[in-house]
């Protein structure tokens, strides 16, 4: 059993939901990334999504764009990102690490080279935003050869037949984009999420994570009612952006702890009340 599968099955046994924070590798500066990854785990993260900086992050809102720009200021490339994962793995062999990014840095390294290097570094899954299922048959094969999980996005506008297509390719978990828009937007509609997730769940057997637009504990808890995992990105990046270097780790730790607490309340409170409250 790989790290992603065992993480989800352990959580399930404890009746808990997975918390998946996203940070961009090299933000706010390269030497902070591994420290931040450990801090996220310490605060209660179950899986880490680590962003590969890219000059043209088309699907991201301004917050994550700025995190990429800060990392690129230090010329953080894919090789550096893998080095960070290797470093993280020296003292953490249990927390799954998912790389998330755009196609071009991967193409520049080459699919096969990347897959081998990623496996060696200890990467568990990869989500390439601009590789939809139609365009990445060879890529998925290269990942599978190295036993790395290909993670895919689903969106509110994904029709049933595409969900079925993704179901055949996706491993680890699928990432449901909770709204029409870019990362960090603020118009999350929980009723829509709930309706669509019911359909997705009937077609996909692996865990479902939900992200985009989850900005606070209330939203995180409400989404955790519906999904197996909650992904929080822009809100954490904002904390990184707004913190002094000396307070950064503490601030991120506090934020992630509050999200963890919210997620862990899910099964001890009346869920319909939370859903109702969060709509207000």
């Amino acid at each position, binding site marked *: 059993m790989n790290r992603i599968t065992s993480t989800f099955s352990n959580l399930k046994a404890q009746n808990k939901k997975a918390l998946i924070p996203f940070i961009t590798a090299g933000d706010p500066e390269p030497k902070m990334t591994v420290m931040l990854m450990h801090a996220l785990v310490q605060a209660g993260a179950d899986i880490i999504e680590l962003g590969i*900086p*890219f*000059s*043209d*992050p*088309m*699907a991201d*809102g*301004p917050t994550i*764009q*700025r995190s990429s*720009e800060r990392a*690129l200021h230090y*010329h953080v*490339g*894919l*090789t550096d990102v893998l080095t960070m994962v290797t470093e993280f793995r020296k003292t953490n062999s249990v927390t799954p690490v998912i790389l998330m990014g*755009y*196609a*071009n*840095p*991967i*193409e*520049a*390294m080459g699919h096969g080279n990347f897959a081998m290097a990623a496996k060696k570094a200890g990467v568990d899954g990869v989500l390439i*935003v*601009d*590789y*939809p299922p*139609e*365009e990445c048959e060879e890529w998925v094969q290269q990942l599978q050869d190295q036993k790395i999980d290909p993670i*895919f*996005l*689903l*969106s509110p*506008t*994904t*029709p049933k037949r*595409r969900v079925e297509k993704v179901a055949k390719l996706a491993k680890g978990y699928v990432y449901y*984009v909770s709204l*029409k*828009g*870019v990362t960090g*937007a603020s118009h999350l509609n929980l009723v829509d999420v709930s309706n669509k997730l019911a359909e997705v769940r009937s077609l996909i057997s692996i865990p479902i994570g939900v992200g985009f637009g989850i900005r606070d504990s209330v939203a995180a808890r409400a989404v955790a009612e519906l999904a197996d995992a909650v992904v929080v990105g822009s809100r954490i990046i904002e904390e990184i952006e707004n913190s002094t270097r000396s307070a950064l780790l503490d601030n991120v730790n506090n934020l992630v702890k509050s999200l963890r607490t919210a997620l862990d309340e899910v099964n001890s409170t009346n869920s319909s009340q939370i859903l109702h409250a969060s709509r207000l």
Partner: protein
Amino acid sequence: MKIYDLPDKHGHFGPYGGTFVAETLIAALDELLAQYRHFRDEADFQAEFTHELKHYVGRPSPIYHAKRWSTHVGGAQILLKREDLNHTGAHKINNTVGQALLAKRMGKTRVIAETGAGQHGVASATVAARYGMECIVYMGSEDVKRQATNVYRMKLLGATVIPVESGSRTLKDALNEAMRDWVTNVENTYYIIGTVAGPHPYPMMVRDFQAVIGREARVQMEEEYGRQPDALIACVGGGSNAIGLFYPYIEDNNVRMIGVEAAGKGINTHQHAATLVTGRPGVLHGNRTYLIQDDNGQIIETHSISAGLDYPGVGPEHAWLKDCGRAEYVAVTDEEALSAFHALCRFEGIIPALESSHALAYAAKLAPALGKDQLLLVNLSGRGDKDMITVAQQSGIVL
């Protein structure tokens, strides 16, 4: 070449093109493709498009023999396809009329566009006014500063211009931002891409709308000269005016096709936009194509004196035409383009766009090596009125 029928049904031109976008955009692109396939063959749509091109754009654009300049240059005869005479002053309007008619039929009330120099923004604002649609134009904040006249032109036409502050604050960032708007407002919004790049079906659709240039040229050449030209020459940024001219000639192997990129301050400097001449394949803005990128796969800022060629990618069909050898791609510098700009002003009384001046510059390089009976057809894709300030600055003149 055997029957040319690219792209395939997934939008691929050999290994290039395709649909490299986030899942959130797939449904919108599927809808666009289905609607485009439906309407492109519909008689009513084609009739309205043709009518608008004739009465609103002013087509057909003539082919003009630049006799004095040809004599001065020596060698082959240089003919100009006069897209500069179109309404709004460039070929861009052919595409925006086509896409606006499609948007209208799709029931969209809001159109968005990206723009670099502002030509496509102006062409989009123009058709939005013409067909009564709201228009938002994304433009890098650097470009907003450099192209104040075009910004004002768009505002006069009723468009809202949004300066983009991310990345290098130029065309590529405007395109990123337009994509973000589209994904957020996809129900009522139509995204008019201005060149033959972006995800499928844009490279195919924009080509189809621009192909009127080459179709007219075939008829006009036969009528005026009794034969087709020996070579076609067009500038290539994204490559829409070039594809528009080339496409109807692709199966005609006797006609050379030459795309001219911007070598900026020289292809050995880092200040150029010669994507096909110097770049390598990758994925950007929804398609696989040649890109100007660093070893880490980050997109590098480009430079050209002509804002319309200042783009780090290129249409995927050009990437394919390069690889299969059907078209040749070369690059000319800012200096060479400026020299051709001035020559056309003085010898023919035509002020060309700086973009088109790149094609002219290459024609002037090629012609002397050829016989006087050879015919070079250059796409004069736009007029240079918009470039007055840039050209004056180059001569040390403040207007």
